[in-house]
């Protein structure tokens, strides 16, 4: 036995560090921003270390409490989970850095009795811990608890802006999320009734295509589709994301929606696929809903009056793409699966950048009506550039991560001869391009004779660095496309099942 401490368990740190940080930030409220930012940095570092470890070819695994499954709970991280963790950590770090600066200015003054800026940090850290726990968990019931942490913390973040519409949206979000979690749990209960296990790996070896399991799959996927805002169950998302504080919207859109979609992919490919439950018909149905989401979400984005609503509807469409992996790949992880993983990663970076830009637009112009965006000289160049970069990835133009994802999806649909899906992806891309260019074209048409009033003192170096955060996030979305071979290689780790 050596005196040295064992090497840190990076995976466990990504869960416990934020929870501890949340507790501390709650107690020492005045230092909440420092504690929150430090904890977020620590989590980002841990998740990157875990990613490097997993990328080395060794999937992570642990039996908590030393109790082997099926009695205990297992933590697992394959390539996809590690990538999602690192994505969560990095996007979170970016948003947290931005929040350090903007949180106080964005919220109405405390004397109105409506706002509680301190609450951002504990809520965000609890959300972060919940998300990471979700990506790592390999136990059906444990996943339910993580889902509850994520959705309740997300409800809190939605309401944080203190706007009346935000309260209404958060209330709807809470009821929908509560119902969705319980539907998922009903599936867990049914599977336990029939097979007597909760661990996903063990269940995989027991499940058979029979009525009880089919009903369980149906209610679990229905609950998760509701949580992921899959068309036509998306009604709650745009008001929630469109009315939350910008930092919160960035987190909700980039990270929270991913968690439930990730769970759908995981259950589909790890549990229902290998056991013959995930039939072609089920995949087709979910794919059709995804197609509906792509078309409807993109169309609404084109028609949106406000920038934030446009971005929110674009999330509805992006969720649709993620569901296309089910009909395209069937039950084996293939090209489409890689494609949606890339899309999910790229979308998180691009969408968080875009929501943070929305905040800057709102601050500088006092509104976010798309028609009135012409006075863009008041907007920093970096913001315009960031919006453009993020849009490139969201539309799926080369060389972005969004492009690689869509390319893989298209390739899968062309190889499989799925004309329908090819057409949907094309149409969705065209529509989202239209939506994004509606915004971008306002910048190109900026009036040169609109001088910038230099009323604000030049910001300090830290502030300038923080202003670069959205740009950095958008740049990562582009970079993902340039170095795509690496994440695609990592995705293969542990993907064999």
């Amino acid at each position, binding site marked *: *036995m050596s005196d040295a*401490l*064992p090497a840190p*368990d990076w995976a*466990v740190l990504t869960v*416990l560090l934020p*929870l*501890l940080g*949340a*507790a501390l930030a*709650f*107690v020492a*409220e*005045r230092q909440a921003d420092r504690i929150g930012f430090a904890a977020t940095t620590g989590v980002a570092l841990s998740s990157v270390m875990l990613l490097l470890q997993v990328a080395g070819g060794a999937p992570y695994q*642990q*039996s*908590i*409490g*030393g*109790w082997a499954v*099926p*009695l*205990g*709970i297992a933590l697992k991280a394959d390539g996809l989970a590690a990538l999602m963790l690192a994505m969560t950590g990095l996007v979170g770090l970016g948003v947290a850095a931005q929040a350090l600066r903007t949180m106080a200015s964005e919220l109405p003054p*405390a*004397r109105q*009795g409506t706002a*509680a800026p*301190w*609450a951002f940090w*504990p*809520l965000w850290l*609890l959300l972060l*811990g*919940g998300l990471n*726990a979700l990506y790592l968990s390999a136990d059906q*019931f*444990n996943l339910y*608890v*993580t889902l509850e*942490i994520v959705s*309740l*913390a997300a*409800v*809190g973040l939605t*309401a*944080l802006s203190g706007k009346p519409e935000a309260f209404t949206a958060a209330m709807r979000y809470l009821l929908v999320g509560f119902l969705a979690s319980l539907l998922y749990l*009903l599936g867990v209960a*049914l599977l*336990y*009734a*029939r*097979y*007597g*296990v*909760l661990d996903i790996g063990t269940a995989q070896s027991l499940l058979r295509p*029979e*009525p*009880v399991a089919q*009903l369980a799959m149906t209610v679990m996927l229905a609950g998760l589709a509701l949580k992921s805002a899959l068309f036509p169950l998306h009604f709650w998302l745009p008001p929630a994301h469109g009315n939350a504080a910008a930092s919160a919207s960035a987190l909700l859109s980039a990270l929270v929606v991913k968690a439930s979609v990730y769970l759908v992919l995981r259950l589909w490919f790890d549990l229902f696929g290998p056991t013959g439950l995930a039939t072609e018909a089920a995949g087709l149905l979910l794919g059709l809903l995804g197609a509906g989401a792509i078309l409807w979400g993109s169309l609404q984005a084109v028609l949106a009056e406000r920038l934030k609503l446009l971005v929110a509807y674009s999330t509805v469409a992006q969720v649709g793409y993620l569901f296309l992996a089910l009909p395209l790949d069937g039950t084996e992880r293939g090209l489409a699966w890689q494609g949606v993983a890339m899309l999910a990663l790229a979308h998180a970076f691009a969408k968080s950048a875009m929501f943070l830009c929305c905040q800057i637009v709102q601050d500088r112009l006092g509104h976010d009506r798309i028609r009135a965006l012409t006075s863009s000289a008041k907007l920093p160049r970096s913001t315009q550039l960031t919006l453009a970069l993020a849009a490139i990835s969201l539309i799926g133009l080369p060389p972005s991560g969004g492009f690689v994802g869509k390319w893989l999806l298209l390739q899968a649909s062309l190889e499989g001869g799925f004309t329908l899906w090819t057409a949907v992806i094309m149409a969705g891309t065209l529509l989202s391009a239209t939506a994004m260019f509606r915004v971008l074209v306002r910048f190109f048409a900026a009036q040169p004779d609109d001088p910038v009033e230099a009323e604000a003192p030049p910001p300090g170096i830290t502030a300038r660095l923080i202003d670069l955060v959205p740009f950095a996030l958008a740049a990562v979305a582009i970079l993902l496309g340039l170095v795509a071979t690496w994440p695609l290689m990592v995705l293969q780790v542990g993907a064999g099942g």
Partner: protein
Amino acid sequence: MSGLLISALDLVLGLLTLGLAAATLGTRDQARMLMLFVTFGGVVALLWVRLRAPDVALAEASIGAALTGGLLLRMRPMLPPSDGNAPRPIRALAAALALGTFAALAWALSLVDWGARPSLAGPVFERLPESGVTNPVTAVLLNFRAYDTLLEVAVLLVAVVGVWMLSPRAPALTPLRDDPLFLALLRLLVPFLCILAGYLLWLGSFAPGGAFQAGAALSAAFLFLLLAGVPDAPGQADRAWLRAALVMGLAVFIAVAVGVSLRGAALLEYPPAQAKNLILLIEAALTVSIALTLMVLFQGGRPASRDGADP
């Protein structure tokens, strides 16, 4: 197998549960709805005693019925009723969905082999001697699946933060400090509830009970003190110690989880000889945090800061 068959008691309990639920959701009057809800909780607790789940029954009676009921009653005056009903097509759709769900569930449940169902009971009872406690439910909650419980404590913290954020000034409670009879009751009941909480906590390691049930009992004591207007009662003012006590359960849980893993073991892998003590330590901290959390939920907002200044 006659004991397995449905009895008159089962029939009555089941129908009563369903009937009360239908009455609760069907009545137009909000006050009556809440009264029926509390009654419903009591009947469900009986149902769980019947199904030999005393731990759950205790938690349902105290948290599910009494506390949730009290919470709903307290908030009702602030929630104006709305008589509106969904349009007819939505009602029809909802009815179809509900009937379909029931039919599918009933069909699936009837396909389950209720005589010899596979379950985790085997492994639990097999490893129970190693868990440090003899109450199997506590063994599952705080040892075999302790990680669930750890994350669940995080859910409680989300609720506290959310409630304080949404309501920076707790809505006023009508204090009963001028009432001699109520104060006389308190003098007896508060110490009794504290003893009960300690008893339930200790009991949990070998009989029905544990941190959640103990926390519910302790929270009742806190609520009585609050209602009596005792100036130094927890929750009268927002103090650093109150916040610290609210997160203590989570902090101790994490500290133990990580602490035991530092010797090269897995997260939350207690040394067998210490398992019982560590479980009791975690449960003691959890009891206090749970009790205060339930109190905060009932209070429905953040108490005023002691020095009057905004934090």
